C-alpha cells in the first residue's frame, strides 16, 4: 500500500470467559479491522492474539482451527445467504469444518433453535423469502452452528426496526445464557452497549482509548465527547438535569434507575413545599 497507515496501533486487552464485551467508536476508528483480526481474516504486522491457549497469529496455525474458536458475524449478515433452504445455508459453516453429516444436522437444529426460530417450520424454506429480521437470525445461526468459543458481532442490529432490534438483542442474551461463550459486539447504540456489556472498549483512531465497565466508561462523558461519542440517552438526560442545577446522580445507565432518581427528587420537593 502506498499510503500506509496504522489501522490498529498497539492494542492490548484481555477478555475473560463468559464476558459480553461492547465495542464503541465512530466509523473508521478501527473497530471492524480489530474484529477481522480476531478470527484471522486479517493478520497483524506485529503482536499476538491468543484465544485460550492458542496463539492464532503463530505460523502454521490452521485457519479451520481459528474459525472454530472465533465466529464472526458481519454487518448486514443476511446479504451472505446463498443456499436454497435455510437448513442448507446454516449447514455451510459446520460442513466446512469437516464434521459428519449427523453432527452437522444436530448443530443446524440447535443453532436455528438458539436464534429463536422454529426448525421444523423454517428448515425447508428459501432464506430469500424470509423477513429482514428472520434473515438476520438465519445468518447468525450459520455462525453459531460452528460452535465458536467467541462470538463476534459487527453491528448486529443495524438497519432493523425497533421491534426486530429488541428481538435480536434479546436473542444475543439468550445465546449467551445458553452457551456461556464470550460475546464481543460492536454498536453505535450506547443504550444497548450499557444494557448488555460487562466490559466496554472504546476505539479511536486505531487505538484502544478506554476499557472498563459501562459505569466507568460512560462516567467519562467529556472524554467520550472529545472523540465524538455520546453516552446513553438516559445518561444524557441526567447530565442535562445536573447541568440545569438539579442535584441528581448523573451516572445512571438505565431508564429504571433514572425514573427512581427523578421520582425521589420530585417527591422530596413536592412534599417539602
Amino acid at each position, binding site marked *: 500500500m502506498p499510503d500506509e497507515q496504522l489501522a490498529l496501533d498497539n492494542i492490548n486487552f484481555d477478555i475473560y470467559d463468559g464476558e459480553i464485551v461492547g465495542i464503541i467508536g465512530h466509523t473508521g476508528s478501527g473497530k471492524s479491522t480489530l474484529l477481522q483480526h480476531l478470527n484471522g481474516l486479517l493478520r497483524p504486522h506485529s503482536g499476538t492474539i491468543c484465544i485460550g491457549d492458542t496463539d492464532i497469529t503463530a505460523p502454521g496455525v490452521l485457519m479451520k482451527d481459528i*474459525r472454530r474458536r472465533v465466529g*464472526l*458475524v458481519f454487518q448486514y*449478515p443476511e*446479504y*451472505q445467504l*446463498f443456499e436454497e433452504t435455510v437448513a442448507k445455508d446454516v449447514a*455451510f459453516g459446520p460442513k*466446512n469444518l469437516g464434521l459428519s453429516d449427523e453432527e452437522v444436522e444436530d448443530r443446524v437444529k440447535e443453532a436455528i433453535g438458539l436464534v429463536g426460530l422454529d426448525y421444523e417450520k423454517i428448515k425447508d424454506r428459501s432464506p*430469500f423469502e424470509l423477513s429482514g429480521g428472520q434473515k438476520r437470525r438465519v445468518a447468525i445461526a450459520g455462525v453459531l452452528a460452528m460452535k465458536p468459543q467467541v462470538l463476534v458481532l459487527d453491528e448486529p442490529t443495524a438497519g432493523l426496526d425497533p421491534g426486530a432490534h429488541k428481538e435480536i438483542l434479546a436473542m444475543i442474551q439468550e445465546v449467551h445464557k445458553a452457551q456461556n461463550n464470550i460475546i464481543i459486539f460492536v454498536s453505535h447504540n450506547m443504550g444497548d452497549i450499557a444494557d448488555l456489556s460487562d466490559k466496554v472498549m472504546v476505539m479511536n483512531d486505531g487505538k484502544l482509548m478506554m476499557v472498563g465497565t459501562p459505569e466507568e466508561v460512560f462516567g467519562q462523558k467529556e472524554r467520550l465527547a472529545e472523540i465524538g461519542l455520546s453516552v446513553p440517552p438516559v445518561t444524557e438526560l441526567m447530565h442535562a438535569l445536573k447541568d440545569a442545577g438539579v442535584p441528581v446522580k448523573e451516572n445512571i445507565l438505565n431508564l429504571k434507575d433514572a425514573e427512581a432518581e427523578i421520582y425521589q427528587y420530585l417527591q422530596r420537593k413536592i412534599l417539602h413545599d
Partner: protein
Amino acid sequence: MIRDITLGQYYAGESLIHRLDPRVKIIATLLFIVELFIVNNFIGFAVCAAALAVYVKVSKVPLSFILRGLKPILLIIIFTFCLNIFMIDGRIIWQLGFLKITVEGLLTAVFMGIRLVLLIIGSSLLTLTTKPISLTDGIERLLGPLARIGVPTHEIAMMMSIALRFIPTLLEETDKIMKAQQARGADFESGNLLARAKSLIPILVPLFVSAFRIAQDLAMAMEARCYRGGKGRTRMHEMRFRGNDYAALMILVLFLGVTIFMRMQLPSVL
C-alpha cells in the same frame, strides 16, 4: 485488497490535453492508430514517436506512469517479437537447429514491436487524460448521428456510465461477501479446478442478489428524479469545441497528411 483495483487508469491533471474536448481526443486516438498502419518505414515511426512524445509532454502524465501501464502487455509484445523474428524466411544471419534469424525477420520484428508499443502508449493516453465519464459522454455524442437510424446511443452511454459508477461498489460488496464466507470456513484456494469453481457459488449467489437489489433501487431512484431516456435531456457540461479543440483538429489533419506523404515518398521497410 480487491477494492484497490482501479479501472480506466485516469491520471488526474489540468493540462491542455486534459481540458480538450473528449471527442477530439477520441478522434485523435483513432487517427493515430490509422497513421501507425499507414506508416511503412522507420522514419515515419520516428516522426510518430516524436509527435507522441510532445503529446505526453503536454499532458504532463509522468512517463513512468505510462510505462507502468505497459507492464501487463509486455508478454504480448515479446511474444509477437519472437514470432516475427523466428518465423520469417529470408537472408539468414544466425541459425541454431531449426531456429533461425533472418534480416527480414529482424526488421519485421523490430518494426511490428515499435508499432505495437506506439499503439498501446497512444491509446492508453486517451484513458489517462480523459475521465471515464467524459469518455462515455464523448462516445455518446460522436455516435449521436447513429441515433437517427435507431441505434440506442444514449442508452449505451448511460449503461457504460452506470457500470463505471457501480464497479467500485460491487468490488466492495464482493470483498465483504468473500470475508463473510471465509469466516464461515469457506476455502477458495485449495482443491482442483472443479472444487474451486464450486467454492465460488457462496460468493456469486449473494453477489447476484446484491446486484439485482442495487439495480432495482437505482431504477426507482432514477425514475423519482424524472429520468425518461435521452429525449429532451440537457447536459450540465456542454460539449462545445473551443479554440484549442479546433487547433488540435488542425494539427491532427496536418499530421495525417504528413504520414500519407511519407508513405508515398519513402521506401517501405517491408
